[in-house]
């Protein structure tokens, strides 16, 4: 009696997602954009983290749990970027569909090669990620590559629209391919950058722009006076720019500006929730302009 009741309920649940839009809870706005870009009309996307703060340091909020409770799928950056809140939010959502290991759990970082994989898991080295640097979304080519993987995954929810998902992924890859050569060309003579955190490494690697250092002495540890002094001593007489994200404190960057005259750029990393692909390309464009700053 009970089994038949539960079995019937299972059938009902299994039947539901096929008929409706695929409800996606995305962690960051960029991942939400990727889901929208690949899923098109077939998906309904909720973004859990805002664009103007560090996805590392968020706290699980009840609204995240509510979004995950209603979702068919969670689309995250992965590689422990959201480890401080996503597992707790998933636990609080009591929704087996979005748990790790299920088809409704998607980590972008799993579907592209990461920088810095396999570093020592030693917190004396700061807030390290042995799984690799999670910020792959700053490299448009990797972003598009993950889009292909997402198309594969979405196809498993709605096979009828699989071709559409793959076409969307191909369009994204084409749009990226169209822009990358010009960006690389523009950045050819870029003298190099100092970043606040290891969060734009992928883009710098894609543009072949050398990274001269980080304002953080260790990942996750705020800049210290002695570390900044070392940076300044090492970079005296060199050319370059300092880039930090707009939610990261500016004082370290301004210190470098005062000491060695490098221009400082405070840039966004995520699009505003709901913005389109052009907004994403605009952000990349801003980084290209920053590294080619004529004052550098």
């Amino acid at each position: 009696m009970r089994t038949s009741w539960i079995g019937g309920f299972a059938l009902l649940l299994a039947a539901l997602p096929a008929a409706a839009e695929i409800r996606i809870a995305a962690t960051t706005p960029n991942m939400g954009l990727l889901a929208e870009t690949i899923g098109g009309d077939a998906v309904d996307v909720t973004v859990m983290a805002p664009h103007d703060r560090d996805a590392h340091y968020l706290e699980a909020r009840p609204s995240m749990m509510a979004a995950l409770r209603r979702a068919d799928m969670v689309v995250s950056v992965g590689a422990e970027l959201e480890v401080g809140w996503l597992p707790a939010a998933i636990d609080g959502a009591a929704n087996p569909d979005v748990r790790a290991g299920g088809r409704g759990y998607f980590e972008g970082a799993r579907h592209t090669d990461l920088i810095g994989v396999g570093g020592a898991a030693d917190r004396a080295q700061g807030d390290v990620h042995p799984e690799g640097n999670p910020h792959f979304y700053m490299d448009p080519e990797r972003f598009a590559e993950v889009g292909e993987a997402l198309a594969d995954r979405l196809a498993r929810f709605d096979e009828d629209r699989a071709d559409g998902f793959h076409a969307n992924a191909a369009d994204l890859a084409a749009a990226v391919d169209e822009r990358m050569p010009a960006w690389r060309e523009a950045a050819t003579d870029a003298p190099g950058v100092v970043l606040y955190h290891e969060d734009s490494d992928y883009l710098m690697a894609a543009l072949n722009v050398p990274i001269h250092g980080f304002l953080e002495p260790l990942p996750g540890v705020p800049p210290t006076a002695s570390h900044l002094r070392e940076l300044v001593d090492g970079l005296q007489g060199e050319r370059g720019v300092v880039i930090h994200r707009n939610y990261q404190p500016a004082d370290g960057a301004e210190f470098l500006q005062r000491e060695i005259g490098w221009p400082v750029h405070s840039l966004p990393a995520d699009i505003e929730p709901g913005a389109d692909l052009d907004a994403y390309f605009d952000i990349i464009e801003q980084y290209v302009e920053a590294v080619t700053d004529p004052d550098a």
Partner: protein
Amino acid sequence: MRAMTTAATLAAAMLFAAPAWAGSDSETGPSMDEALAQADSADADAATAAQQQATGVQALQIDGDMPIDSGTAFNPAISIILDSLYSQNFSGEDADPPGFGNGHDHGHGHGDGHSHGIEDGFQIREVEAIFSGSVDPYFDLVTQFGITENDIEIEEAFFTTTNLPAGLQVKGGKFFSDIGYTNRKHTHDWDFTDQPLVIDELFGEEGLNELGAQVAWVAPTQSYTRLGFEVLEGDNEELSPIDGGHYDDGESVSLSDPSSPRLFTAFGKWGPDLGYDNALQLGLSAGYAPDWQRVDEHSSRFDVWEGDAWFIGADAVFKHDAGRSHGQGNWTLQAEYFLREIDYDFVATDGGGNNATTSDTDQQDGLYIQGLYGFAPRWNAGLRFDALGLTNDAFEPGRDDDGERIREAIDFGTTYRYSAQVSYLPTEFSRLRFQLSQTDFSDGSDYDDHGYDDAWRADLQFTFALGVHGAHDF
């Protein structure tokens, strides 16, 4: 009582239904899931094989299905947390507030030494060892051991179901009850060195931590809504003390030996979506203990209480995220209220065959309000106001000024406590905290002037976490 048995049966049925559900899943819907799993293992395996070679980390497999990309390669996740203190009660005595702290058995072992788990001087309050992970596709397991200098205690050891449908989740084992907001938080996760007085005195030093089962449901709504109930053993010293048995010391007293479960709770939480900057959660909770007993053996008499107890509570938490780095500008406001009532018959035997019986009701409550503010990156400061015994009617054996035995619950007055703390967190894994608190005791009852001076205490707390420390829930 019948309703409770039914509830317990239902809970048990749900536990056994979990594997059954899993079984029926693969029977009723194999085509989609299994085909997908196979399709995936082809491409995912190729992708992850390369990664595994690079990292040397073996991705976890669930039953031959796709690798878990859960963001951590460790299973079980193991963490060790050291909670150490230097504390000094430098003025007055840090005693139990009048009317509380098992005040019923006055001079009966408890009473004066009670100090909220904090002693004077250097101390390791606790080393917490936490192991958690997925058991199989159907269950997660969390075990937490509290290691002190003298013993090891199982603080929590529970499973939770991971694949019940429709937002249902069952938890079973030993765990912190979900009543209120602070109760389920571990010591290292408190915003102050100690917990609110109302939790400490109405539920005990450990809070409401019980053996039993919980069934909870998360509604598929825009606002976060979670409802649940718990069927618990009932080992709580404050809510369901059991002294059942036969006592014979010239006088003979027999108390029933009630079987468990002896404690039932229900809770509801609601959190609207207030956008990215703000979060609110409101909660209500209630509990009922059908058997409440206490026996005090004195040299020439027994004092016996027998009855039942219940409580209700309300909690509210508001958090603001300023979006700056390392918690700067963030603030949190939080408040909880609990009211406990005990209805009992009191029997005092005096050894001469004289039994004086009275029936009465104890009613005691308490609340706290606290605020936390991140005044600089990695620094926060907090203020907390505790009021205990706004209603404080309790029965305590004694005699009034004329030497007559007191036969009713009397008002013990309100005790207030003021606490302030400053914390510095070099990273998420270490914290240094300084706290100052002042307790302004009530004067006690009309008949019994406790007359405690204000107690002042200073704490210096060092907390360190080693290993994979799971994310904290809201």
